[in-house]
């Protein structure tokens, strides 16, 4: 393992309600790179994303998570966020009674940023327009009545506002039509351009990767990291699926 890793997992195992989901995961993501995490349904990819972000539903049973040179294994999600981690949710929650704008402002204020409300309004409106979002959505209750595409745009909006050091995108492309997919791709590109961001993309759909230079691909099966390689692995998996990886795990 290189010393320049932004994220490093060593022997990470996690369980939910005493059922072991992740088994001794070792992997790392260096600063500024784009990594892709692939695997069949139920492989534990989303679980890994949530465990990295500190979801209290999961118990870490062994191993550690290092981020930006510090051990964050015991940190709460808010502390991980403030340290520069971001998780784009596969199914963002709805929060009735909270306008999207109130939430975004609380998010900015939570980082100790002093921004005048007028400036905040300008910024959010400009970002919404960049992502082809009707600014009227800013006045709507967070996620309530939003389509799948709109919810994912809101995730991208937060990514661009927070400019985290590492963004974990959990199936951000799932269920999107071509137009929404293009907007999400634009969000990812902007994030990369504006802050040399590091990406860990959990996906089934390789279309979202077309405009990105992927540095590394990791393959998960049954809660284990079973392979890694260059971007060429994506084409191979596209053509042959995960069968040989699943077979190898079954033999083990």
């Amino acid at each position: 393992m290189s010393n320049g890793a932004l994220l490093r997992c060593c022997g990470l195992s996690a369980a939910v309600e005493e059922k072991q989901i992740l088994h001794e995961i070792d992997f790392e993501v260096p600063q500024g790179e784009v990594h892709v995490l692939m695997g069949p349904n139920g492989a534990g990819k989303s679980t890994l994303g949530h465990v990295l972000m500190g979801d209290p539903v999961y118990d870490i049973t062994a191993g550690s998570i290092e981020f930006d040179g510090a051990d964050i294994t015991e940190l709460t999600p808010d502390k991980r966020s403030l340290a520069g981690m971001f998780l784009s949710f596969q199914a963002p929650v709805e929060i009735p009674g909270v306008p999207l704008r109130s939430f975004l402002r609380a998010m900015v204020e939570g980082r100790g940023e002093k921004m005048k409300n007028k400036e905040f309004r300008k910024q959010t409106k400009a970002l919404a327009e960049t992502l082809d979002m009707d600014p009227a959505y800013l006045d709507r209750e967070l996620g309530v009545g939003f389509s799948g595409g709109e919810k994912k745009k809101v995730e991208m909006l937060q990514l661009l506002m927070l400019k985290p050091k590492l963004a974990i995108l959990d199936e951000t492309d799932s269920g999107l039509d071509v137009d929404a997919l293009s907007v999400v791709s634009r969000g990812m590109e902007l994030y990369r351009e504006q802050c040399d961001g590091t990406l860990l993309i959990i996906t089934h759909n390789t279309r979202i990767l077309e405009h990105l230079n992927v540095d590394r691909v990791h393959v998960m099966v049954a809660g284990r990291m079973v392979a890694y390689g260059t971007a060429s692995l994506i084409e191979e998996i596209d053509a042959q699926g995960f069968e040989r990886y699943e077979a190898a795990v079954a033999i083990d």
Partner: protein
Amino acid sequence: MQTSAVTIGRASAMPAPTWHFLNMNDTVIEVPAGLAISPSVKVSEPYSAKGAADEFENALADAQEAWEQDHPAPTAEELATREEFLAAEADATYGGTAQSAYQVVADAIEESRSLAVAFEHGVGDEAAAYLRYAAGERVVVQADPGKQVDAQVVVAAVPGTVSAAAIDVIADAGSSVNLSIVVEADADASGQAPQPEGITGTTVRVFADDGAQVSITRTQALDEGFTDIDDTGLFAADDARIDVRQTILGGSATFTGLAGDLRGDSSRIDVDTRYLGHSDRKLDLNYSLRHHGPKSRCNLQANGVLAGRASKTLRGTIDLVRGCKGAEGAENETVLLVDEGVHNKTVPVILCNEDDVAGNHGATIGHIRDEQLFYLTSRGLSQEAAERMFVAAIVEQAAIDAPDEAAKDAVVRLGERLAPGFAELFEEGV
């Protein structure tokens, strides 16, 4: 004219002695001595919509006549059969079924066959009478058959006064009325220390005739030191629909009461209440809806946030009276408790004296759900910051949803007092 001290007891009382034993019926509204009766009320309505002072009584009398034609009084023979049935029932069951005080009154109301007797005020007759006295001349908004009327009433809170409005809404058949009531702080007195005292209030009577639609929004954005009384009584005829939206954000004490008679077939009343309790605020809310009409519908929805040492009592009673076949009533409340020092009481009551009806209630009381909390914390908010966000959000949402500029301005002024810089969020041209 200055007031003597007035105590309005048994306000917003629940319909059974049990609730008295459980301290749910201890609501007392105190009007301190020395306040001036001085309504500061601005009314904006089309001249053509000004109705006569007795318009409401006339409309109810006409409805009484129509109702009696459709519901003839029982014959002497039917009454005798009923008496026999009740006597037999009394003999068969240890001397009969015990009746609560509520049931006795409710039976008397039904037996009176009078729509006027059945018409109730949410906070109670005593409070309604006081507000009528304090308000002086009634504001009467009337929509002729098939017409639409938009009206606005702004009640300003003036320190040292009782500022009240008495409003009647008469929506004739097939008409539509949109009424916005704004109860706002006195701009000159805002931020004064010590907080000035005063009372604001509205007592509203609504008559919605066949097929009429009435929408009422009441936005209350008072400073601390003020007590607000919000009293409403509703009558809905066949296919009439009444929507009420109440936003309760400020003041030191708030007494909100709404009673409704769903008299007509397929009549409908929806009530949506948003409230914020903070500091030492006291909120008292009472809803009582009586279904008489077959296939009538009601839905009571309340969403609130309690912080600091605020206390809140909400009573919601849905009474499915004999004859309302196919009626459905539902009540639901979601309360977020931000601080340990808050007091929350929620009492849903569903009374049923008819088959083939549905009554549902639900309440979600507590903290943010786990999956919501993880989402918010993953964005850098601590649990405490996340819960504080809900306090700010309820004011912001009220400004966004405000039905008109007067309501929006009142909410934004309150938001600015609570969190300087709030007004910038709503400046034009950004």
